[in-house]
């Protein structure tokens, strides 16, 4: 079984994010980066499927050379090789990301394409769906369980009010939810070995991808600061404030 799996780098979700004063982006100086938690779930799923069924898991990412550190984590977790497509994070939108991944899919021809359901920085939650649509493949998003049997992926999905189980024919696109599994911590020998695993670098031009964007970012702004609460003296005053200031009644 051949699996393509995404390993996107994101800003540390626990770090304090500051918007640049001119609103053109976020302050990247001193920021720490991590592997997207949902991608970690996807990688764990890919690696354990390969352990079970044989084959290979290939980690893919899009970004400049500094994202390779996170791509190596995917290799340390057990992916056999990795591909990075060279383009800066701020030159991407969900559409271009999807079009690049589609090209990688077409070159590698995997049985399964696993992605994180969303990246915790942009939170767009679009790429897996776009990829499936562009490739005209079955999709199963927000997977909390995946079982491969008879050329199908049986995927459980958490939906409002319960759990839905669907079967999709392979090849298919599946996006991972947090409850899919607990990603492994790669052991030190595997971290050291990951340095020697093959990592291929491609450019959008070499893949024949047009890098024009469909989405233009107009501005970034920090969420408004929360105001402190106040104490009211009477119920009358409370009702008055709820009606006129909070407009909650």
């Amino acid at each position, binding site marked *: 079984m051949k699996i393509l799996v995404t390993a996107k780098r994101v800003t540390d979700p626990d770090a304090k994010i500051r918007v640049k004063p001119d609103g053109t982006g976020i302050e990247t100086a001193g920021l720490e980066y991590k592997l997207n938690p949902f991608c970690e779930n996807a990688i764990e799923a890919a690696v354990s499927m390969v352990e079970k069924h044989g084959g290979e898991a290939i980690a893919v990412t899009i970004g400049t050379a500094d994202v*390779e550190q996170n791509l*190596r*984590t995917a290799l340390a977790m057990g992916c056999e090789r990795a591909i990075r497509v060279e383009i800066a994070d701020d030159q991407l939108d969900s559409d271009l990301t999807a079009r690049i991944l589609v090209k990688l899919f077409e070159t590698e021809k995997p049985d399964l394409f696993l992605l994180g359901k969303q990246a915790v920085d942009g939170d767009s939650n679009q790429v897996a769906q776009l990829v499936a649509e562009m490739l005209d493949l079955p999709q199963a998003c927000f997977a909390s369980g995946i079982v491969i049997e008879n050329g199908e992926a049986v995927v459980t999905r958490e939906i409002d009010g319960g759990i839905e189980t669907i079967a999709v024919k392979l090849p298919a696109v599946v996006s991972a939810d947090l409850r899919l599994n607990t990603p492994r*911590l790669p052991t*030190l*020998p*595997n*971290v*050291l070995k990951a*340095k020697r695993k093959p990592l291929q670098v491609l450019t959008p031009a070499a893949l024949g991808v047009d890098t024009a964007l469909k989405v233009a970012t107009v501005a970034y702004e920090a969420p408004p600061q929360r105001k402190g609460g106040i104490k009211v003296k009477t119920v009358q005053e409370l009702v008055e404030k709820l009606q006129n200031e909070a407009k909650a009644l």
Partner: protein
Amino acid sequence: MEFGLTPDQSALREQVLRFARQEIVPRVREHDLASEFDFDSWRKLGEYGVLGLNIPEAYGGGGADVMTCVVVGEALGEAGVDGGLTLAYGAHSFLCADTIAAHGNEEQKALYLPRLATGEWIGCMGLTEPGAGSDAAALRLRAERVDGGWRLNGTKMFITNGPIADIAVIFARTDAEAAHAGISAFVVRKGTPGFSAGKNLHKLGVRTSLTSELVFDDCIIPEENLLGMEGMGFFVALQTLEWDRSALLAPAIGTTGFLIDRCCRYAGEREQFGRPIASFQAVRHKIADLKIFQEAARSLVYRIAWCKDQGQPMNHLEASVAKLFVGDASLQPTNDAVVLHGGYGYCAEYDVERVFRDLRIAAIGGGTSDIQKMIISRLMGEGV
């Protein structure tokens, strides 16, 4: 010459921090307070690959260079792993396993190293004796040739992992006449008749490492347990001391970072005289002193690691300088870190008193600061 970590090394640091904070640190205080060795953490260090990191890949280890071991040791300390566990790891991996890797023959390496790499067997190294510490060459534990092997008689003292070790690298006297050249190294297995370990000694710090005497009473070991050549023991011991003064010191650098973090947080939160104590210059300077110590110690330790990885053997002067500096120069700033926390600093809750206690071993274990100065002045040669 490079001073910073490579991207690979900083990625490694990240990984180890995450592992240690998740899997080890939550049990540290409990075990320190009880002066107990943490077998769960030991098993996890083994599974994660720390215990075998420096052991060659052919024998089930990670095959890492010294600098990699230093990065990992530093990250363990930074995460908040206590000095007892890192000492137990150091004695096992550097003093015991590395000696076998460097001086053992093929059979010895194949037998011992894979089990030491996983931590299934715990290792220790015995050089010090009740009557021979600073003057290690005066050791008296006797090894006499008997039919098909050796008979050991004598006592080792202050041996880290002694009470729990499955195998011990032991330095013994094989020639009563020759001083330095009369010492040989041996491997002794737990359960060998005539070999026993004493009770754990209650200590000021590094309490989760167990320390005891080892007693040899007509203990017969087979011929094949001789490690390296007969009479070469003292030189074998010198090599382990070099590790002792480099990779084994790395956790102390990380621990200082852990203290800095604790101090910054506390100083920012604690208010006296109507403002955070971090606004007082005297408090800020205490934190600056910790940083100064950490940066200087780091340069010294990295330098030895670098020398070793460059294939320059026996960097004794550099190693002694680093060892002495970590032991002595850490006293004031780590004491200040306790004082910065006021009454809470003296109590276990903030971990700073534990770090203070743990670090005190650096000026004693593996050779006291007096002895380091003796070595340094001797190696400086005629001019001194």
